[in-house]
């Protein structure tokens, strides 16, 4: 009885605040970033900001994305790979290639769907008026 109430409460909480499991994963990821040497942490935080804007914002797959990022930078820090060698001359090139592995961000997904259906309507109109 108490368990059921608790799980209902948790379920409600998750509806309001997002999954608790994801929150835990996010906190673990942030702790890993905090443990990185300065330059690597600066780079990850810059990536994080970009990904927040253009990548998937939440959900388990977004968490996987951040964990993959932490894997890369922990390894690079251990190897002392120069920041420039990780990113190359064009950091945008890298972040876009990286982001392409995960679901689209909400904004991009919504606009792509809107765009695709608008073109579909135009093509339809074209067929009927030709």
């Amino acid at each position, binding site marked *: 009885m108490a368990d059921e109430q608790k799980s209902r409460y948790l379920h409600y909480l998750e509806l309001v605040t997002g999954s608790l499991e994801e929150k835990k994963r996010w906190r673990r990821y942030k702790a890993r970033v905090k443990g990185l040497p300065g330059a690597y942490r600066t780079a990850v935080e810059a990536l994080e900001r970009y990904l927040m804007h253009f990548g998937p914002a939440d959900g388990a797959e977004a968490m996987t994305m951040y964990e*993959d990022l932490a*894997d*890369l930078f*922990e*390894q*690079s*820090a*251990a*190897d002392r*790979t120069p920041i420039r*060698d*990780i*990113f*190359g*001359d*064009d950091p945008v*090139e*890298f972040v876009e*290639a*990286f982001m*392409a*592995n995960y679901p689209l961000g909400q904004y991009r997904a919504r606009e792509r769907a809107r765009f695709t259906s608008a073109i579909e309507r135009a093509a339809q109109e074209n067929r009927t008026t030709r």
Partner: protein
Amino acid sequence: MATLMTEMLKGTLDGIVLAILSARPAHGYEITAWLRGRGFTDIAEGTVYALLVRAEQRGLVEVAKVPSEKGPPRKVYSLNARGRDHLDEFWKTWSFLAERLQQLRKGGK
């Protein structure tokens, strides 16, 4: 030149990475070093990592975590059966492309 190379590599780099892995298992850094040693000096390590993540997601490689003396365990990637099929497909497409471009260059049709 460097940018033309970057542009042309975009569609082929994932195939190149699989081809390297078909010879022997490797981790990300080894793959980048291999590429740089063969004249692909502009390759970013992060980009290679992004391709390895993709290959893993698509089930083309197996990943083994090997302990290392410094830092976290290394992810060592090896090509599996599905990856080899994908690589065959890549080489077929590449041959087609190379052949057509050669014809174009010779002014044929």
